């Protein structure tokens, strides 16, 4: 636990979960420690079967942990479930939940009652959410007639009815087209922007989604957190040094790669052709240099040296590893391979 005394939005300590199965006990979660601060958008990234949904189920009071404890804004998810449920909501992606016989408005109205809203207040909130999600044209349409994207909008509209402090999103964009997925991401951002302190815990196996949306990310596999931090921190795990790609017209004849490597703060210099492959031979025409530095500040010395040698600078870009690379390094395989493996189990 961190030194902070204020309640975390999520505090999980040693959460474990074992399921009984025909072949013997299956460990879905194995000692998860997690602290999410109010206002954070925290991502849990992992392949199918990593334990992401199990974690969300425990935190959203749907499932009991086998070991450990967890709290939401200081409320225990096992012993204070009624209070936890007042301040949280849940959206899962990829499911076709809903009463097909009810209209959009009827289903939202029903849930407003379940959230404890008096009828008039509930209906006002229902209509506000329908307007907010731009689904007025389907408000009287039966749920059985909705598209996947419309169902997910309905699901999100439901989840906002009780004005939750924390929103658990379990693969919310799975199965959605690009446009619908973007709408969902925009709504989540807007939800957080509307009131400071609103917290989101998002599970996903879309690297780009996690990278784009999350303040911090935990990478999980086989029920364990392998690493957590900001996307930048995670990327630094696989690339501790700053890596720049410098585009020049040609390496001056008076310079060599070794002379560049000798500059202060420079760790490595490699020549790259335009297609990214290594080039060889000093003095041969080249366009790009991949330069590893101890810190960003060392780049100035390199640029000065190149300019002094007569090279013309054409581009500078900082090269960062992707979350996919982080994942591969931590898990030992790509996320798509992991999904295939778990699907094949």
């Amino acid at each position, binding site marked *: 636990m961190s030194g902070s005394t204020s309640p975390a939005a999520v505090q999980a300590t040693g959460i474990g979960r074992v399921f009984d199965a025909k072949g013997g006990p299956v460990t879905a979660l194995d000692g998860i420690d997690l602290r999410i601060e109010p206002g954070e958008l925290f991502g849990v990234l992992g392949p199918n079967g990593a334990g992401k949904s199990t974690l969300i189920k425990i935190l959203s*009071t749907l499932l009991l942990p086998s070991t450990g404890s967890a709290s939401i804004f200081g409320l225990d998810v096992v012993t204070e479930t009624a209070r936890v449920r007042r301040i949280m909501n849940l959206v899962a992606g990829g499911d076709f939940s809903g*009463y097909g016989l009810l209209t959009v408005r009827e289903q939202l109205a029903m849930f407003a*009652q379940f959230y404890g*809203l008096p009828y008039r207040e509930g209906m006002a909130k229902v209509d506000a959410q329908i307007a907010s999600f731009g689904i007025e044209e389907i408000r009287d349409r039966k749920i059985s007639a909705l598209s996947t994207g419309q169902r997910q909008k309905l699901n999100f509209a439901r989840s906002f009815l009780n004005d939750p402090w924390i929103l658990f999103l379990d693969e919310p964009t799975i199965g959605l087209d690009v446009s619908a997925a973007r709408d969902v991401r925009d709504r989540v951002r807007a939800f957080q922007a509307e009131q400071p302190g609103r917290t989101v815990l998002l599970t996903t196996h879309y690297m780009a989604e996690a990278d784009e949306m999350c303040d911090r990310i935990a990478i999980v596999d086989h029920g364990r957190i392998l690493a957590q931090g900001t996307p930048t921190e995670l990327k630094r795990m696989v690339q501790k040094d700053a890596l720049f790609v410098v585009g020049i017209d040609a390496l001056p004849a008076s310079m060599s790669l070794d002379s560049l490597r000798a500059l202060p703060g420079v760790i490595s210099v490699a020549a790259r052709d335009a297609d990214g492959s290594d080039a060889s031979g000093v003095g041969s025409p080249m366009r790009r240099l991949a330069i590893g530095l101890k810190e960003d500040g060392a780049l100035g010395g390199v640029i000065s040296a190149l300019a002094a040698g007569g090279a013309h600078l054409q581009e500078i870009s900082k090269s960062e590893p992707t979350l996919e690379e982080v994942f591969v390094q931590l898990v030992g395989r790509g996320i798509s391979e992991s999904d295939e493996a778990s699907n094949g189990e």
Partner: protein
Amino acid sequence: MRISAGSTPEVRPFGPLRGGAADAARSLVASARLAWAIEGNWAQPVYLAAFLIVRPLAFLGLFLAVLSIGGSLDVATIGFVVVGQAVFQIVSAALEGPTHALLDDRERYRTIRYIFATPSSLLPVSIGRSLVKASIAGFSALIVIGAGVLLGVPMRAGGPDLLLLVVVLPLGLLSVVGLGIVLGGICVQLRNDAWSYPEAVSSTVFLLCGAIFPLEVLPDPVQGISAALPITWWIEGLRRALLGTTSPGILGAMPTNELLLILAAGTAVIWLISPRLFVAGINRAREKGQLDRNTAS
């Protein structure tokens, strides 16, 4: 209420605290509306008629045919069977209602996780669904009684004993719904095949509660079980209210005020126990991970 790291949710974010009973009532009404939408949604009215009218009448005809083979088919016997058969329409609906509601939400509509994650308890939600099913079954019960009148069953002179009816009907209904939620709490811990368990229980109760034959037909130890079922006394109370006569044997020997006492006490005991058993069952399902697991796929 503003969310901050230091704040704790003493007050609901959306407004002042509301009572637990008010919340439960709201949930019960909302789930009853849902049940009405689900149960009343028949694509073809002819199917609805078949279910609510033809089916109970077919069973009534079957029982009467069997009794006629034994040569014991007089109007008193027909009256005995008609009321038992009518009431049992409600009994089976109320017994099976909570289980079917929970399994429907888990396996078919896949909404149980979203309902469970609300401040509302699944208890009023299940009760609301069950009560509507029982009410719709009440229509079938009226059809059966109407058929009995057409068959010449002598009803109570001057019409039903309304006072007795008003006391007996809700008490019995409560007792059956109470037993139904216990079944729901058990079946939600099981996989998809739990659908058929309430029907098995319902059929057993049908044999035990004196719906179609007097308790004396049963072996002595089984009669004890029958006498312990509030449903047995509910049916007998309704026979007295509707027919103005008592059943043969030990049921008929019981004075009406004592019958009411037994029914009330039995209902009270059921409601002392059943919510706790239901909650324990839900918690066990939550512990096992069965609560929102779709077991059909």
